[in-house]
């Protein structure tokens, strides 16, 4: 187990370094921040002076070397736009994104999975068809559009919920619903498919023949065996939620990391983009590890050497 964890840790560090290099190169090739940071009436001399002061006129390799050296000490540089440390900006926004993604994830697990189970247990009934229709909409409609439609209906027309921003529990409802819609739909259909697979198995026939109640059959035996693909997909969906947060946070003016990332990319705020990407990559790596460890818990047949 220790060896397994050590190997994973090493691999993760390698992945993070790779991500940092790729993002760095792409960013620096994508544009020159000096011309957008300086006011439009700046002379060439003033723009060049600014570029020199920030070190953007050094060769790319030199710039990357300096960046890598600082990054090894945990210093990811200072935001060009805000002039405060880039990583502290990202970390400050992280809790808001976690609240949003966490609530959306709760919706996915508490709505998507049970709906899929119900659908599988009562196939070809009204419940089944209705659920699958809603799932189809959820997977086809763009998040951006869903968000705006929800705002129009629940905030502008009905006035039940706020249109945007962060605040109390009422502010989380619409963004979380928007963010979670796609993943909930996907999980619902996957759960249904996984359950149907398991329900047809021989050991399920045995369980029913033994005289177990329908509920016990469904939960303790069917769902328990269908969990593996569901958990795998949940792990992937958590990643999808974190990246989908970019759009949802922008539509709902939610002060999270996704919104910060979008702004930073548009403004070529290199240090902030690097910080956000590295933060996201670290989160993905940790989540993947947790999912893998969860397998061992859920399926006694799996052991890690």
């Amino acid at each position, binding site marked *: 187990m220790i060896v397994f964890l050590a190997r994973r840790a090493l691999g993760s560090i390698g992945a993070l370094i790779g991500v940092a290099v790729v993002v760095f190169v792409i960013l620096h090739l994508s544009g020159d921040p000096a011309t*957008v940071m300086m006011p439009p009436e*700046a*002379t060439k001399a003033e723009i060049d002076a600014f570029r020199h002061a920030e070190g953007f006129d050094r060769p790319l390799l030199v710039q990357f070397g300096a960046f890598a050296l600082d990054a090894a000490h945990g210093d990811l540089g200072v935001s060009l736009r805000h002039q405060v440390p880039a990583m502290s900006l990202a970390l400050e926004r992280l809790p808001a994104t976690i609240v949003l993604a966490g609530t959306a994830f709760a919706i996915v697990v508490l709505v998507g999975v049970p709906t899929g189970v119900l659908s599988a247990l009562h196939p070809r009934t009204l419940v089944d068809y209705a659920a699958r229709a809603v799932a189809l909409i959820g997977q086809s409609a763009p998040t951006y559009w869903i968000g705006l439609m929800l705002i129009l209906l629940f*905030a502008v027309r009905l006035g039940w919920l706020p*249109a*945007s921003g962060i605040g109390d529990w009422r502010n989380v409802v619409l963004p979380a619903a928007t963010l979670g819609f796609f993943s909930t739909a996907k999980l619902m259909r996957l759960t249904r498919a996984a359950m149907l697979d398991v329900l047809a198995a021989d050991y399920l026939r045995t369980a029913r023949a033994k005289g177990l109640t329908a509920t016990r059959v469904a939960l303790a035996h069917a769902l328990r065996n269908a969990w593996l693909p569901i958990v795998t997909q949940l792990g992937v969906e958590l990643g999808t939620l974190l990246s989908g947060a970019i759009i949802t946070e922008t539509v709902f003016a939610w002060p999270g990391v996704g*919104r910060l990332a979008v702004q930073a990319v*548009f403004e070529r705020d290199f240090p902030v983009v690097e910080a956000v990407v590295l933060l996201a990559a670290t989160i993905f790596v940790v989540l993947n590890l947790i999912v893998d460890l969860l397998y061992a818990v859920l399926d006694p047949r799996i052991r890690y050497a």
Partner: protein
Amino acid sequence: MQRSFVLLGCAVLAFAPGGPLGAADTTVTITQGVDADTLNPLATTITPTFNVVQHVYERLADFGSRPGEYEPRLAVSWKRISPTTIEYKLRHGVTFSNGDPFTSADVRYTVDWIKNPANTSRQTPYVADIDRVDTPDPYTVRFSSKAPTAIPPGLQNPIFIVDAKYVQAKGNAYIAEHPVGTGPYVLREWKHDDQTAFDANPHWWGGRPKIDHVVFKPIPEAAARVAALRTGATDLITNVPSQYYDQLSSGATTKLEATRSLRQLFIAFNTLQPGPQQNKLVRQAINYTVDVPAIVKNVLGGRGFEQSTPIPPNYFGYDASVPGYKHDPTKAKALLAKAGYPDGKGITLVLNAPVGRYNRDREIAEAIAGQLTSAGIATTVRPQEWVAYSNEVNRRALTPMYELGWNQPSADADGIVTALFTSTAPLSCYSNPEIDKLAEQARGELDAAKRKALYKRIATILDDDAPWIVLFEYQDVYATSKRLHFAPRGDELIRAYEMSVG
């Protein structure tokens, strides 16, 4: 006993919030598309941030409603004491919100801070005309420039004044989050990307502001901004997409406010790169082909003002006698034939345009390209995202035509001519030694009448040489709640202390 209780009761009622002599606690919420990037007024160059910090900080003087006019703020008066030196008399009895007195030492410190390379301030162009600062006494400050300038040093792009003692004690990182200024409001809290809240400063030298609390709540998505206004979550929104104008002007709780902007949109020819645009006759022909009133009517819904010259009517230096180019297909045809491109045959043009930077920038470019193509001059649009576009503009790489906007808060022709038509300016793809000479002369000409004449000559030369397709000046549209009294400004600054509710 009975009567005094009654009187006491009346007094309490009268002065209670909502009563006739008391004031209801008013809060105004303003929504822009982005949050302030910092609350250090010397570390930013973007209007949304200026809109926020100008509630806490003040300048020596603000631009007035007409070009060349100023409103005294921290300076009560100023006069030239030599062709290169201006002397400001500062306001007495002004304190920063932490109690520090405002003196000339703060002004000097502010200029030095911007010029200090260690601070990598982006505002160095704003103080480029200030060569030396002298502070003969605590309420007098003198700015000197190297050469005489028509606009005195410090008034071309006035800077916000900071508290020298406070900044030196706390450092740049701290003041970016904890602003201390002389202005009508003090910061209550700043939750990044969420809201910035200000409370009225009861000790402001200008008297207590009418609005007690100002909150800035940024919302990046335009449709969400409109929704926030309609639900009453905000009182004012900027950058309203035109498809919402009708809905908002006729809404039960909303209205539109509009004003002529100081921002114009234009198409520049890259005369430095080879191509048909280097031929003056072609440029003139294209100017005659484009129908600007049609574009204003169809793309902007009439919310624009056609111009005949790069110096608009609401700027100093405007001359009404410059004819410009009215839509005239016959003249266009004749010029094209003379240039060797009968009916536009042999010319293919690319119109470079930014996307989402200016109101309807891409649609306007497509409309112009459509007009040119219908007239026989094959033109396609090449749209680009702003930063990539801005990089290419600065490298003078966009050819043969590119779209750009310009807003000059000082409403003075010098800003336009120097930044857009002189040979060394990064944004100019035009080189004419005569214009360079005249521009420098006009910049230093202290006599207003002579200066106007110089700009008339410049405008006449530019009219003939046609380095631009001169288009229009925008009408800026804001949407507000019905209760807000708000008069928009041409320089796009939004000031809560100039608003009232009710």
